[in-house]
């Protein structure tokens, strides 16, 4: 009846996951109780859970990412503490538990922190920057978000019911095959990523179509803000790379569930094929993450230097070059496979070539700052911190791209330090820069500046104190994922890394504090004009938070930096005094399709993990029925009358005129 599921699946004998899960459960129940008692449930359901508004969905993506950041961060804390004390001893984590923790840490940080964070920011900002009312497929957007949330939920359920994979963030066979991992851990991994992978693919298709097809009048490709370009490149990579992940994991599923022989040791299976396939997705994946961050830095550096982006054309070219070359370097993840000197040389050279467009970008940002009137607000600090940190990460990357060097450094802590260097210093700093930069746009008030700066400095210093020691330990020969060790020379570096991580956590703590304090003091941080940073692109041309339809009248674009041009013109000619002609606006209706579909996906995923076949059928039928019901509805749009549009727009225009008439602002 319940497949492999029984009471023994709950780890009564392991206090750490049980206590952690207990705390999480209490928090969730408390939040639910509070929301219900206060009567917010109908509001949440109507305005958020069923929302198909790209801004709301973007915010929910970011919220998911931040919650998961705390989960992944707790895993990181446990790893660092374990390695600091497990010198000639077993530490406090038994090996099977330690292995689950580093696997969950990597999986969560990549798939449920970095991915939702960048997808959330793209969702929130790109339609606004393109001057349109929504993404191409609003309901599908909601489906994509909720499927991502399903994946995150399943990974976290594994904490209480059963176990998580012990195979690392990529489940390499033959270890991940049924023979060596008979438990449900790998199945949790596989199904949560298959489901959230569909969500990511949907988001990618949606964003590609939005950028390529939905642009306001006059918004030609070479007038798009840089962030739209990097979104395009990143989403193209999602469309091209995520199906490979889906196929590869499907093959591993077939091996595990039905005894196929794709990656087994017997009957002709080929383990190295898994490595090739997974990294053919895995390497583009890191560019899926970092390209949007590059876009954020471009927007931030240009805005806070009060200058146009230097070398816009070369930036576009560099972005698209990275997009293509990222598919030609995957083999550098396993030079030690023994493909031979020629193959290794080709991939080594390709890996170094991809550093060239990245270098172009760094110089463009530096030249954008050169001669500009720079304001060191929090987003700008994150960007400058990124430039320094990312260059170090890039240089160590070029180092491991040399095959002979890689033979020494492969799977050492040097490599761990390298990819944390580029992912924290590149993606996470970018996400934080984007968060502080666009927060006033999303909510109508700024984040507290002082706390933001404190968060930046603690995170930056904490990052260096944590990860520079890992480079050193790696060079001293320490391999990754060690539950305990006996080499005295590594010990000091592990203790230093643990101290650094405490600093990093203080940084994260300041960010949480920053959000709480800012919400409490929102009236004094209020942004009334919709343009708090003196911005240059169209998202700043509407109020904060923007009305559901984004723009009362779709803007007409005449050049790069559309909003900057509008502002300059308004100052010179007071053009905005002429009365616009408002029309009715049609917007898509909210729909619970995404939420209900994700509910059935969760049921189906859980049932597949535990081999509860009748429940699998139930989940499938439910999901299909949801789509049919959705397709059957008669009204998919509602109309906002012109009078209401006018009322909303007039109020914002008045604030804006007051700003434009002040001297020295625009």
């Amino acid at each position, binding site marked *: 009846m319940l497949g492999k599921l029984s009471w023994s699946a709950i780890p009564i004998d392991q206090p750490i996951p049980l206590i952690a899960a207990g705390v999480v459960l209490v928090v969730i129940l408390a939040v639910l109780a509070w929301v219900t008692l206060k009567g917010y449930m109908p509001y949440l359901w109507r305005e958020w859970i069923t929302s198909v508004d790209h801004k709301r969905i973007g915010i929910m993506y970011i919220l998911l990412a931040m919650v998961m950041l705390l989960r992944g961060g707790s895993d990181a804390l446990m790893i660092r503490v374990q390695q600091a004390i497990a010198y000639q001893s077993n530490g406090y984590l038994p090996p099977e538990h330690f292995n689950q923790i580093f696997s969950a840490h990597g999986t969560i940080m990549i798939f449920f922190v970095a991915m939702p964070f960048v997808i959330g920011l793209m969702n929130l900002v790109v339609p606004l920057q393109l001057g349109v009312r929504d993404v191409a497929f609003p309901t599908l957007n909601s489906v994509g978000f909720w499927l991502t949330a399903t994946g995150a939920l399943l990974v976290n359920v594994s904490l209480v019911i059963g176990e998580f994979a012990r195979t690392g963030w990529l489940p390499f066979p033959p270890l991940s095959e049924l023979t060596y991992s008979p438990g449900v851990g790998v199945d949790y991994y596989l199904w949560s990523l298959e489901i959230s992978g569909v969500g990511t693919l949907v988001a990618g298709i949606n964003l590609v179509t939005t950028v390529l097809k939905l642009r306001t009048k006059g*918004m*030609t490709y070479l007038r798009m803000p840089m962030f739209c370009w990097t979104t395009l490149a990143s989403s193209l990579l999602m*469309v091209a790379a995520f199906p490979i992940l889906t196929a590869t994991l499907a*093959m591993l599923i077939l091996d595990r569930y039905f005894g196929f022989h794709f990656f087994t040791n017997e*009957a*002709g299976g080929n383990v190295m094929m898994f490595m090739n396939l997974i990294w053919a997705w895995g390497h583009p994946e890191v560019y899926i993450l970092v390209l949007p961050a590059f876009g954020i830095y471009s927007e931030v550096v240009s805005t806070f230097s009060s200058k146009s982006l230097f070398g816009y054309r070369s930036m576009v070219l560099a972005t698209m070059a990275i997009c293509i070359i990222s598919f030609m370097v995957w083999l550098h993840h396993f030079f030690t496979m023994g493909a031979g000197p020629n193959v290794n040389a080709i991939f080594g050279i390709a890996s170094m070539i991809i550093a060239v467009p990245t270098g172009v970008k760094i110089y463009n940002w530096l030249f954008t700052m050169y001669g500009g009137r720079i304001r060191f607000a929090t987003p700008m600090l994150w960007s400058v911190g990124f430039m320094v940190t990312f260059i170090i990460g890039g240089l160590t990357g070029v180092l491991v791209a040399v095959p002979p060097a890689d033979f020494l450094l492969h799977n050492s802590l040097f490599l761990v330090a390298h990819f944390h260097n580029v992912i924290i210093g590149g993606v996470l700093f970018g996400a934080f820069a984007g968060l502080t930069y666009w927060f006033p746009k999303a909510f109508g008030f700024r984040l507290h500046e002082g706390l933001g700066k404190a968060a930046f400095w603690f995170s930056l210093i904490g990052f260096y104190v944590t990860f520079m020691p890992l480079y050193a330990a790696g060079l001293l020969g320490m391999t990754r994922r060690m539950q305990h060790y006996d080499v005295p020379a590594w010990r000091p570096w592990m203790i230093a890394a643990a101290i650094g991580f405490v600093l990093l956590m203080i940084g994260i703590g300041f960010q949480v504090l920053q959000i709480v304090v800012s919400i409490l003091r929102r009236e004094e941080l209020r942004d009334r004009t919709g343009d708090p940073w003196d911005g240059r692109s169209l998202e700043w041309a509407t109020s904060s938070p923007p009305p559901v339809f984004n723009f009362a009248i779709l803007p*007409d674009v005449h*050049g790069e930096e559309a909003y900057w041009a509008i502002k300059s013109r308004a100052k010179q000619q007071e053009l905005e005094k002429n009365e616009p002609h408002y029309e009715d606006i049609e917007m898509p209706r909210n729909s619970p399709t995404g939420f209900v579909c994700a509910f059935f996906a969760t049921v189906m995923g859980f049932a597949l993990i535990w081999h509860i076949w009748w429940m699998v059928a139930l989940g499938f039928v439910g999901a299909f029925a949801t789509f049919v019901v959705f397709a059957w509805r008669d009204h998919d749009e509602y109309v906002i009358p012109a009078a209401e549009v006018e009322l909303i727009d007039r109020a914002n225009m008045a604030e804006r005129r007051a700003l434009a008439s002040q001297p020295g602002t625009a």
Partner: protein
Amino acid sequence: MTDATIAYPHSDPHHLRGMEASGVEHAGPPSKRIVTGYGFWIFILSDMVMFSAFFATYAVLLGQTAGGPSGRELFNLRNVAIETAFLLASSFTCGLATIAADLRHKTWFHLAMGVTCVFGLAFLAIEASEFADLVARGAGPTRSAFLSAFFTLVGCHGLHVSAGELWLLTMMAQVFAKGFRADIQRRILCFALFWHALDIIWIAVFTIVYLLGSAS
């Protein structure tokens, strides 16, 4: 969409000649039908990428028969030819259904979709009997890596056709109940794209798996 030119007083110095089609200014978002079709094309491309992963795997594992039967001993080209004929014919009738939908002719639409459905089912029945026959002869997917790859690649296409059948019946029901509404027309367009794309993939399966497999 007409390519209505918007007249601007000054030409844009940043406008590269040849970068935009015919140098016409961008006129804003196109109609929903175009956006939907375009998005679905992107989805089909991603689906093709997924199939290419299975094709690549098949190519790598082709020789890994683990002492078991190879394609040459297993494939029955006559059956596959009949299968192919059914699928290609179903694509033709699917095209007729699209024309009927454009003309908003319910009877012809249901007739053409019905025939498409039957042809698709015939294709699936032949494929299922082939699979059952192979398993009965001890050449199931667990026999060797080659057979794992074969069953997965061909089976994945079969699953797509099955999903297409489900979609097809839903579309027939929708047209029956709601008529040719604009959103239903867009779904018919997407369904047709999907069904034809499955043909393209089948042609690759037919050539690479069956024809080349029987020759080697």
